[in-house]
């Protein structure tokens, strides 16, 4: 069993409560009859830390929707255990499941708001379901509308709101019963990039202010990169990689992670460059090296030093600087002559500075 380590910013906020908020143990899920069953999840082991924002990323059909629905019992596992805050979900009867669900908020890609209810009444729905009286509902919904920045939109119907506003109503609704866990099912996938950022900022703020644990699934690396402190990469029903977001993003181990990353982090080579790459050098070739800056190396003028070290023949081909889970991270693709002398000097420089490097190939 592999557990993600509760390191860095995702440390448990309560001393006693070091047990994870959600624990998946040996989870498998098959759909259909035994003969031609479709295996959606296959041996998932994962822990969601208390108070953290954990992202599960994968391509569509990878099984992430099924996985998140196991947490509130919308799906049942075929094998294995799901434990939410000490309670095994599979062992609950209908009534027990309903009271657990009232402690877990959920937001959806298509918002799933009732078109027949105003923003106020949509947020009131989970409270009505839980049996709150009109006065209690009124006292709770007002502050929630303010929290999500829709204080003036209480009487608007969903059809009168923009996508971002609808998701804000969805978030307020998910928070109405003061849950301990928020599940986010592709909550920003139907939104434009700018709105996505504002919704992510809101989720981040709620996580920080309320100490609410957030488990989100997405196919967008951008989402994970922006708010998740921990990430699990899921592919064909299996978790192929998991750990603190920064580590996964700066040193992806699995091919699926690399592919998902390629679109967001500046690690993509231009097509004209990639097509000319050779795995072995021939005389007169130049070597292509990717330099990765993070942690201690992120703030040093290492590029200038490299140029000084190996002479003026360094070419910068691609580069990007980003922020991942709040930490700066830079990549730079450089090329220089693949002569033994220059290679030797470069390698000594890398060893001395602790710069992470990767030889991508050789070009004529």
């Amino acid at each position, binding site marked *: 069993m592999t557990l993600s380590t509760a390191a860095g910013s995702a440390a448990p906020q309560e001393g006693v409560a070091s047990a994870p908020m959600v624990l998946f143990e040996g989870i498998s899920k098959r759909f259909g009859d035994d003969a031609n069953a479709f295996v959606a999840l296959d041996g998932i082991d994962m822990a969601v830390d208390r108070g953290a924002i954990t992202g599960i990323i994968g391509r569509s059909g990878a099984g992430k929707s099924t996985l998140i629905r196991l947490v*509130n019992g*919308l799906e049942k596992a075929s094998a294995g255990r799901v434990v939410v805050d000490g309670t095994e979900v599979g062992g609950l009867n209908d009534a027990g*499941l*309903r*009271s*657990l*669900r*009232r402690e*877990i908020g*959920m937001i*959806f890609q*298509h918002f*799933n708001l*009732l*078109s*027949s*209810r105003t923003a106020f009444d949509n947020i009131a*729905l*989970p409270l*009505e*379901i*839980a049996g709150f009286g009109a006065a209690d509902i009124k006292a709770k919904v007002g502050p929630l509308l303010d929290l999500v920045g829709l204080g003036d939109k209480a009487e*608007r*119907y*969903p*059809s*009168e*709101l923009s996508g971002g506003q609808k998701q804000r109503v969805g978030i307020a609704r998910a928070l109405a*019963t003061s849950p301990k866990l928020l*599940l986010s099912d592709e909550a920003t996938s139907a939104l434009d990039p700018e709105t996505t950022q504002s919704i992510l900022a809101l989720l981040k703020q709620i996580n920080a202010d309320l100490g609410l644990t957030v488990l989100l699934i997405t196919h967008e690396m951008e989402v994970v990169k922006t708010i998740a402190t921990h990430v699990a990469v899921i592919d064909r029903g299996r978790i192929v990689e998991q750990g603190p977001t920064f580590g996964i993003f700066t040193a992806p181990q699995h091919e699926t992670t690399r592919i998902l990353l390629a679109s967001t982090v500046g690690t993509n080579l231009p097509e004209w460059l990639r097509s000319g790459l050779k795995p072995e050098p021939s005389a007169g070739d130049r070597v292509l090296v990717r330099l990765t800056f993070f942690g201690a190396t992120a703030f040093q003028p290492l590029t200038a030093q490299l140029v000084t070290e190996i002479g003026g023949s360094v070419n910068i081909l691609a580069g990007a600087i980003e922020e991942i889970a709040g930490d700066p991270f830079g990549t730079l693709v450089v090329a220089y002559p693949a002569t033994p002398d220059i290679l030797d000097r470069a390698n000594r420089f890398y060893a001395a500075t602790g710069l992470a490097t990767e030889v991508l190939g050789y070009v004529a």
Partner: protein
Amino acid sequence: MSPEMLFDLLWKSLLQTLHMVAVSGLVGSLVGLPIGIFLATSGRNELFPAPALNRAVGLVVNAARSTPFIILVVAIIPLTRLLTGTSIGTSAAIVPLTIATVPFFARLVEAAIRDVDKGLIEAARAMGATPMQIVFKVLLAEARPAILLAFTMTIVSLIGYSAMVGAVGGGGLGDLGIRYGYQRFMPEVMLAVVVVLIVLVQLVQSAGDALARRFDKRNRKS
């Protein structure tokens, strides 16, 4: 026929039609509504899974709907007599009209409820709603405009059906048209009946549309 007499006949027939349509429309819809809800929620993996009963009810509903109305009227005469003590007249006509309304309205309600976005059911389940709460707070609330339109359509169909119960002496506008307009060859009576029916259907449809629009919040402009 003097205009006064014609007016008198029209008025009496109109009242009979309204009586038949109102009673059978209300009773039939009240019975049809829960059957429609059941049909829409009792399939496999639905809120109240009972696939066998769902199929059985569906079969009965289809059988009732495929029976031509005029045959239904005659076929259930024993039942009509049992319920009303007679097999002719306006009250007797209400029985087959009601029985025809139930499956008709039930299927329309079923379609209206099945049209509700499945995501809303999932969201309500995620909130910890009971199946009953989902029916009342989500499905019926969201399907209300469609159900109101279904009710309107049912009433309009009933106005048409009610013309056929003249065959069992049910009275009403259709009966008037057949007896005076056709059998006694008085085209002015036939014309008057048709005009009154057209106006009646228009009024019902407009009222139903307006009501449905009032409850439909899906396409409001901001």
